[in-house]
């Protein structure tokens, strides 16, 4: 009986270690996963072009906030400015 318990413990140990590593990874995921405060940019209603924004603005009776970047790297759609 003691032999069986020891064998069961030995087989269980590697799986427990793997689970511990997985648990650490999940804990880190929960720490790093952005919350709503970090994702404020995604509260904005983006349109891909000014033309699209103006069409929607006219249809939905809403204003447009338009950002103009004088630069060759200013593609905000890809997060560059």
């Amino acid at each position, binding site marked *: 009986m003691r032999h069986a318990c020891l064998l069961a413990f030995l087989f269980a140990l590697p799986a427990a270690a793997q689970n511990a590593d997985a648990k650490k990874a999940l804990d*880190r995921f929960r720490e790093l996963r952005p919350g709503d405060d970090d994702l404020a940019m995604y509260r904005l209603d983006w*349109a891909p072009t*000014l033309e699209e924004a103006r069409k929607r603005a006219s249809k939905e009776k809403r204003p447009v*906030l338009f950002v103009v970047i004088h630069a060759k790297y200013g593609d905000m759609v890809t997060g560059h400015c």
Partner: protein
Amino acid sequence: MASWHGHRDDADIPEVVQGIWKEKFRPGSGDHSNVDACVLDADGKVVRTWDAMPMKKGGRPEPLSGGGLAAHWRTNLEAARKALGLGEAGEARPVSLPALPEGTHSGLRVFTRLDDPGMPAYFAPIVELVPMGADEWAPLARPAKKKTVDASGFLPWLSKMFPGGVMERTDPVTKRVYEVNGASGELTFEPAGAKFALLHGKVTLTDSGGGDFSYSGELRVVVEYKGDETIVKGVFEGKYPRRGPQGGFTFDITGVIESVSK
């Protein structure tokens, strides 16, 4: 909200931009940054424009930290609301992350952040969504036993682990951002319980800009197998080198990966 970028000698500059720049570059118009904002009413008429950066005398912008930039924008947005005849601002819209396109059922969402203390805006995560079909899910199928897999098999979503706003990784001629097109590294993929698996190891990423540019980090992804559904929760923690006008630095780059489904 929309944005546009370009130079004064570009063809097809929108009329709104021409109007903003006519005033901006007028001799004697004062110091300014290279970013402007304006509000247009529902009919397309400009009701307010402002320099996106509050400027100090001598042509230097106010520091990005310290709340001055936010106060500058609040003041101008409030003035625009008044010009539009709008009342007090209501509740903020809910967060709306990139969603699965029509016709797709599942995918991975990747959040990437660059911890560059000189550019606080880079701390804001960039969010990309990668629709995944059977071919993309196959490398994440439950391993029967511990095995070694190549990171290149996960390029469809590892390629989204790039920091936004990094100017120097843009083609100077086409102005297109270089794409992450290479993932290498030997990863361990092993069972981690009855319905779980753990994928982990060092990943090195390269982009279409070539040269000796690369960045690396530790990837840890937990995969849960729940009936027909594969649930993914992972992190990437690495270092990203910047070599730009500000000099050469290395910053922490953090990625978070999660599955989404309809």
